[in-house]
């Protein structure tokens, strides 16, 4: 008898459990319907935002640049001013990328491989260009090397002694320096987290076995950081090509020290409908480069994550 009762109890409990489970299942079903609605809403909002805010402006550059036909387009990107601007832009970009890559490797090595006082301060100082307005970057070089700058007398003395005529502010070296300033932290910032994550075990082992610094870097460190390094270089290149504010303060001669963004500015502000179309044509060169950068970046980012 008692066995039967306990059996009944078990059956009862079981049925309650099943009923609960069923109820739960139903609720989940309702929940997922609510989920699909949210999902569709979120995806739509995201798509609309990205298309309206990012894609439409991108397409509108291309449409504006071809408004007066292909012949006008080619003519406006091959003027003397534009060719000179392309030259200066490439020069500044190549130098900035070389300097910042060298700095990025050296600084990230010092910061991640050794412990020293003031490390946090040094990292913050390196990041300054991220938080300073580019116009202030330009201004600071003018205040150093310009007419009022304290370094101008020193530069004059050097020029006199060597019989040279090196100018920095309002000349090509100033443009290069300003470009270096705004892209300064790009490479080191990509390398530091990777080097921190890799740790120093392998390098310490190699050092104890007698490997020199360069060998350690070439054989052990470099293979770990190569994708992050490439990623940093891509970011640095993109920013260097497009820098405007800092260079605008330091460069005043069209056809001499103007970079592509400054040439775009000059064409756009000159006001006639033709020159505005020309400025969009020159812009389209930079748009094509930035789309290529985006694609490269995506590929490399994927490799870094892997």
């Amino acid at each position, binding site marked *: 008898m008692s066995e039967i009762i306990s059996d009944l109890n078990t059956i009862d409990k079981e049925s309650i459990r099943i009923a609960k489970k069923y109820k739960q299942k139903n609720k989940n079903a309702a929940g997922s319907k609510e989920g699909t609605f949210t999902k569709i809403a979120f995806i739509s909002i995201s798509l609309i935002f990205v298309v309206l805010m*990012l894609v439409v402006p991108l397409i509108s550059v291309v449409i504006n640049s071809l408004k007066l036909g292909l012949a006008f387009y080619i003519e406006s990107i091959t003027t003397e001013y534009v060719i000179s601007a392309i030259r200066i832009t490439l020069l500044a970009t190549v130098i900035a990328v070389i300097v910042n890559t060298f700095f990025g490797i050296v*600084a990230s090595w010092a910061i991640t*491989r050794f412990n020293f006082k003031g490390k946090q301060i040094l990292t913050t100082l390196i990041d300054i*260009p991220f938080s300073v307005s580019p116009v202030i970057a330009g*201004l600071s070089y003018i205040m*150093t090397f310009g007419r009022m700058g304290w370094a101008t007398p020193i530069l004059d003395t050097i020029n006199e002694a060597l019989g040279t005529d090196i100018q920095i502010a309002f000349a090509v070296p100033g443009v290069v320096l300003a470009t270096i300033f705004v892209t*300064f932290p790009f490479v080191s910032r990509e390398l530091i987290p990777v080097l921190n994550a890799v740790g120093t075990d392998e*390098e310490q082992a190699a050092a104890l076995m007698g490997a020199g610094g360069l060998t350690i870097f070439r054989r052990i460190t470099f293979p770990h950081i190569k994708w992050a390094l490439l990623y940093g270089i891509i970011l640095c290149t993109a920013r260097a090509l497009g820098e405007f504010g800092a260079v605008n303060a330091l460069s005043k001669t069209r056809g001499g020290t103007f970079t592509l963004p400054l040439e775009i500015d000059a064409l756009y502000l000159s006001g006639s409908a033709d020159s505005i179309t020309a400025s969009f044509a020159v812009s389209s060169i930079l748009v094509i480069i930035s789309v290529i950068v985006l694609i490269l970046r995506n590929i490399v980012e994927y490799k870094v994550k892997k």
Partner: protein
Amino acid sequence: MAKRTKTLELHIKKGKRVIPGFGLTLGITIAMVSVLILIPLASVLVYSLSLSGEEFWQIITSANVLYAFGTSILCSFIAAVINCIFGVILAWTLVRYDFPGKRILDGLIELPFALPTAVAGITLSKLYSNKGAIGSFLDKFGIAVSYTHIGLTIALIFIGIPFVVRAIQPVLEKFDSQYEEAAYSLGASKRTTFIRVTLPELRPAMLTGFGLAFARGIGEYGSVIYISGNSEKKHTQVVSYVIMQKLNYLDYSAATAIALVMLIISFIVLLFINIVQIRQSQRTNNV
């Protein structure tokens, strides 16, 4: 193997620097930071400090400078708030849902980083002017965008969106969904779960993204100067534009004085971001 590890540990414990190159790399790093960043910025500081207090005060409190600071700060703030809202939606969509074209959408977020600011500036200005594709549509409803504060804010939204999305995305990826599931199975509705469980976890990342977008917005030059119209009368000049204008008039005292105030503001924002990040890392380490 164990023996070798022990020798290594001994070396490290003795505080010996096993890896070579400490002096050289640190020396180069400090030299380059000083020559390229610190000394030029210090020149601005030294020059602006050579002004008398009265002069400095007069420059800073002149009407158009005050309006420029007001415009820059207000528009950057509004843009950063809007970016926070859309940033959460975008990051959420990119992390939680799967749909065709997701990777393209993810890549496009970075467009404002890759596109030169001057190009973005002239395009947005043209697009939202009363003859442009979007501007002419809005014009029918009597909304003028280009050459107003609205246009300025739109340019700042464009420039700031990747900062917010890229700050929130990694946190959301790491976020353990078991807390949400726990809340949900305890009977909380989806909305309550989001507000009470998910959002507090995202708050530090949102603040970081907000701070970065805000800091960038205050200093922004290239993308805003075309669409803002730079009218002194309508108060659409931003701080960077005023500095550049003073520079073009060779008014170095005014340019450096305004720059100094702006540097102080951006350092405060930077400090705020650092504090948020330190708190965030402490919190994640405790868990």
